[in-house]
């Protein structure tokens, strides 16, 4: 405080006033003093020029010190009041202090006045500071209270060490439905469902919070009306400065919606799993049906064919000589057709078996594979003029048996459709782009009309008559199926009478020996036997 200290002096002896001022000046206290002698002047001075300190004589002719003290206590209770008196018995001195005087100094010991004044001022100062701190604390508590009370989304309440509610905010009121007056003083275990109360969960929660300082739990809570909600709670143990447990603060949030969403996700996942399971069962059933179908094809379709061709042949061999040439021709046609149909059925069955066989991928040297196929087909072209142009082929990843079948079919095809050429030209090569390795087999054979290119790889699709080029029409279907199972593609280009080029591609990733062996195969395969 930079203000000059205002001292009100109540004294009838002028010399004493001078002496007092002198003492105070001597000790370096800066002050202004007002000197009064009567009650009226005293009151007037207090009212119009409120002092920071009052120095008062005890015995005055027209006024006495105790009356002045009483007035001062009433008008300015905070102002220190020091008796400065000629003589004062011990009893009077105690009385004066009891009545609210700050101190007393005897006139024959005036050097003690300055320290007494300074002490009194320090006391005032301290008291003011304390009051300020208290004000600040009160306002901070008020802000906190307003904050807590204003929170609606969270139930915030405080418990005493025994778990009874002592503070209850509007969030708690809103979430639980209890008004503060209904719940304060009640035990908090009523918020738990009966089964958890029976299991001692509320006590357990407080015990854990007490031990660990904090306890978090998620679970059902019960509203006033008995309905339940899913809440996440944090219980914090509160301790006073000595470390003694003073209660608990509880913050709780209704997360029923989140819980419901989580439950829904869980339900959907379960549902999805169930549907995947169902679908798997359906697929297995479909697979089994397929098995049953091929089984039935092999047995039920084949048997009548065996009968027809068998008896037709028997007829021809046993009674051929009694039939005329034409009838024998008819019989021969029956025999040929049934045998042809038999081959188709056998091919179809092989195709279906191949489709169901498991893939066993390994690294394959295509050069060796092509050489092997050439050797196998050698007797088919021994008599023919064929020029082979075979590039250096890359290694690929695949099922050696199935890929060999595919390459075999394509080369056999090229040989078959170049049969009418004086000199067949068969070219085999490969190109590798970033994503796939494409292998081509090009011939200078009869080719085909590109309009029908889409039909090429279908089962029993033939672009040439069986009389012109033998076959059941399943070879390219096999190629496509094999390549598809490896994750690759098949396509072809041709010009009628100019030759054809057949392509198949395999994913280049399959080249990487580190990649899983059956990356592109079906997600499940069913073993045999």
């Amino acid at each position, binding site marked *: 405080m930079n203000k000059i200290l205002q001292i009100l002096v109540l004294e009838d002896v002028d010399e004493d006033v001078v002496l007092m001022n002198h003492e105070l000046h001597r000790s370096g206290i800066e002050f202004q003093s007002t000197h009064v002698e009567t009650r009226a002047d005293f009151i007037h001075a207090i009212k119009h020029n409120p002092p920071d300190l009052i120095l008062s004589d005890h015995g005055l002719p027209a006024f006495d010190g105790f009356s002045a003290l009483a007035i001062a206590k009433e008008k300015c209770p905070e102002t220190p009041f020091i008796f400065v008196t000629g003589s004062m018995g011990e009893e009077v001195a105690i009385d004066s202090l009891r009545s609210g005087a700050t101190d007393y100094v005897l006139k024959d010991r005036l050097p003690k006045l300055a320290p007494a004044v300074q002490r009194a001022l320090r006391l005032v100062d301290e008291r003011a500071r304390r009051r300020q701190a208290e004000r600040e604390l009160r306002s901070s508590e008020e802000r906190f209270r307003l904050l807590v009370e204003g929170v609606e989304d969270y139930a915030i309440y405080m418990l005493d060490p025994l778990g009874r509610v002592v503070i209850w905010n509007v969030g708690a009121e809103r979430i639980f439905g209890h008004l503060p007056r209904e719940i304060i003083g009640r035990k908090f275990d009523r918020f738990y469902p009966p089964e958890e109360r029976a299991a001692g969960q509320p006590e357990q929660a407080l015990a854990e919070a007490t031990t660990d300082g904090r306890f978090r739990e998620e679970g059902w809570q019960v509203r006033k009306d008995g309905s339940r909600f899913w809440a996440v709670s944090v219980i914090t143990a509160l301790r006073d400065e000595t470390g003694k447990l003073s209660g608990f603060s509880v913050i709780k949030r209704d997360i029923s919606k989140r819980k419901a969403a989580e439950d829904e996700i869980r339900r959907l996942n379960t549902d999805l799993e169930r549907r995947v399971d169902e679908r798997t069962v359906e697929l297995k059933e479909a697979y089994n049906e397929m098995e049953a179908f091929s089984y039935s094809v*092999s047995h039920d379709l084949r048997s009548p064919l*065996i*009968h027809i*061709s*068998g008896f037709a042949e*028997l007829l021809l061999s046993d009674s051929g000589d009694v039939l005329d040439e034409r009838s024998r021709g008819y019989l021969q046609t029956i025999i040929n057709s049934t045998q042809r149909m038999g081959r188709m059925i056998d091919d179809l069955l092989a195709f279906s078996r191949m489709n169901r066989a498991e893939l066993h991928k390994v690294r394959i040297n295509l050069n060796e594979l092509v050489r092997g196929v050439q050797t196998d087909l050698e007797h088919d072209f021994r008599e023919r003029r064929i020029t082979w142009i075979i590039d250096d082929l890359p290694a690929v990843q695949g099922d050696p048996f199935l890929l060999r079948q595919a390459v075999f079919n394509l080369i056999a095809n090229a040989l078959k459709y170049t049969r009418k050429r004086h000199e067949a030209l068969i070219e085999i090569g490969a190109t590798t782009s970033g994503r796939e390795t494409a292998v081509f087999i090009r011939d200078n054979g009869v080719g085909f009309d590109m309009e029908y290119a889409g039909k090429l790889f279908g089962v029993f699709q033939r672009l040439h008559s069986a009389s012109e080029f033998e076959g059941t029409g399943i070879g390219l279907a096999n190629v496509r199926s094999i390549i598809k199972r490896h994750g690759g593609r098949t396509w072809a280009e041709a010009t009628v009478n100019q030759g054809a080029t057949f392509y198949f591609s395999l994913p280049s990733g399959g080249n990487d020996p580190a990649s899983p062996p059956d990356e592109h195969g079906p997600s499940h395969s069913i073993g*045999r*036997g």
Partner: protein
Amino acid sequence: MTPPLHPMNTVPHILLAEDDAFLARLLLQALEKLNPPPRIVHVPDGEEALDRLSLNRTTAATLPAVVILDLQMPGIGGLEVLRRIKSDGRLHLLPVVMLTASQDDHELRACYESGANACVVKPIGFHQLMAAVRQLGIFWTQINCSPPPASPL
């Protein structure tokens, strides 16, 4: 056709179990063309095949030289008859040929795993059938008709 039992008949015969009457007829025709034609006992199902082989109907001398079993038969199927033959100490040396409708590997594997001596995929066409039967006939009725003589030890 259930020919009367001839306990003293030592002509090697073939027991054929086939439920498909037409195929059975074709097979009989094919077998009859063998030289010399074997005696054939045809039964239409597995039960009768087992009955034919049972202790009270056969002796070691009257057992068939070879048993031909259709894999697919109603009731006791060919595979089951095969298993019972191969697990019967009295019968397990009998050569058994299985007739299958397709080259399905798991069918063929099941046959061989159960002890079949041969598997024949029923061919389409009488000549092929005859060729198959002739191979079997020559092998099983002429080369392998009798069990090896007991060791002189």
